[in-house]
């Protein structure tokens, strides 16, 4: 039996993490399944574990003085989906994860720490330029989520650190149009086969001032490329149809699907094409269906 710790405070958790290297387990929806051993048998982990799901310091959603949103790492998908403070993309992704019973357990910190390219929350958080706050007994550091997850199941987390908070900055201007699509085998309890999150901001003159897209499950990490996004910024939204062919050809180069590449490339580009074509028609609703 591996050592298991149930710290009562974050301070205690950080000391345990430093001294034993115990890995945090929150909702258990990934780890308890990954290390299960069969009917009626207790999961067995290759490293010490500490259960952090009840640490009050890690739970909650609040706005910071500069207008950013701060979400505690042990906040569940249900809590995130129900909070009006949370940006639309993240609420959408939260409300479509698994089923109700899973969303009541699964946490945002776990979804990030697990670092699966199919993770639903990282795809939308990376779109919004979110950062993670990593704490250790030495102090805190903040890392851009897009840098933190650098490959499939690979993060910059150090052996003495715990993910404590997720910070989502407020965009300079509210997005004009937003899009989120998750493709799975069924409506409930489906692992994402492919996802695309996108947002665009258009000024009074029809000029694109912000455009972002992040692509989930289409490569070893969530794909986002700011240089490519920037090629549309400053252009008039009416010119999108003429810019699309070369934009989509370039987008194809930033995704690297490991399996079913043809399907993933085609579907990703079709979603992007649909979103951009729809917004060029300037529909009245903010959410592109």
């Amino acid at each position: 039996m591996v050592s298991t710790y149930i710290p009562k405070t974050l301070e205690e958790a950080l000391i345990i993490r430093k001294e034993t290297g115990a890995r945090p387990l929150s909702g258990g929806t990934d780890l308890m399944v990954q290390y299960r051993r069969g009917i009626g048998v207790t999961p067995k982990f290759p490293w010490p574990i500490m259960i952090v799901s009840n640490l009050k310091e890690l739970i909650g959603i609040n706005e910071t003085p500069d207008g950013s949103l701060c979400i505690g790492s042990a906040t569940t998908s249900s809590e995130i989906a129900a909070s009006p403070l949370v940006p639309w993309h993240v609420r959408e992704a939260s409300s479509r994860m698994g089923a109700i019973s899973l969303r009541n357990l699964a946490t945002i910190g776990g979804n990030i720490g697990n670092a699966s390219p199919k993770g639903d929350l990282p795809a939308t958080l990376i779109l919004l330029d979110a950062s993670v706050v990593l704490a250790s007994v030495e102090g805190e550091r903040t890392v851009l989520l897009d840098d933190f997850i650098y490959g499939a199941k690979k993060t910059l987390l150090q052996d003495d650190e715990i993910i404590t908070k997720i910070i989502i900055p407020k965009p300079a201007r509210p997005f004009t149009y937003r899009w989120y699509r998750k493709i799975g085998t069924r409506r409930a309890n489906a692992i994402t086969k492919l996802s695309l999150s996108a947002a665009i901001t258009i000024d009074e003159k029809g000029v694109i001032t912000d455009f972002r897209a992040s692509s989930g499950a289409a490569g070893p990490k969530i794909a986002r490329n700011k240089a490519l996004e920037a090629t549309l910024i400053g252009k008039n939204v009416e010119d999108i149809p003429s810019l699309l062919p070369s934009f989509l050809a370039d987008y194809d180069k930033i995704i690297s699907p490991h399996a079913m590449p043809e399907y993933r490339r085609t579907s990703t580009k079709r979603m992007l094409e649909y979103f951009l074509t729809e917004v060029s028609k300037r529909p009245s609703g903010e959410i592109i269906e």
Partner: protein
Amino acid sequence: METKIDFTLNGQQVSVTTDPLRRLLDVIREDFGLTGTKEGCGEGECGACSVLKDGKIITTCMVPIGAVGGSDIVTIDGLKETEQGKTIIEAFADGGAVQCGFCIPGMVMAAEDLLRSNPHPSEDEIRKGISGNICRCTGYDLIVESIALASERGDGLW
């Protein structure tokens, strides 16, 4: 490394001293003999092991008992003693919702969870409410109709 864990189980204050990584599902079934809660898939997909934890539905196959300290757990064996539980179970029986029966404890828990937040759900809301529960016999229609019947008969209970 055994740890003592105190929690509330079906209204009773209880305590277990055990490996904190044991699944809540196994503690409920083995230590307390409450075998109404079933193990189906063991990976959070089927909903057969559902209980209410602090009033919210969860799948117990994914929860280590070490995360349960201080929580209020209600299983099917507790729910069946309540007016709400009896109303749902009778509606399931009268509505022909049950074939093999293995998924039914989880379905009843999901129905209770749904009716608590939405006492008069539409058909679509019922289908969403049980979307985390898999039944391989019925095709779901009679379960959905039986939850609507429970909602009607139990008007004012939730």
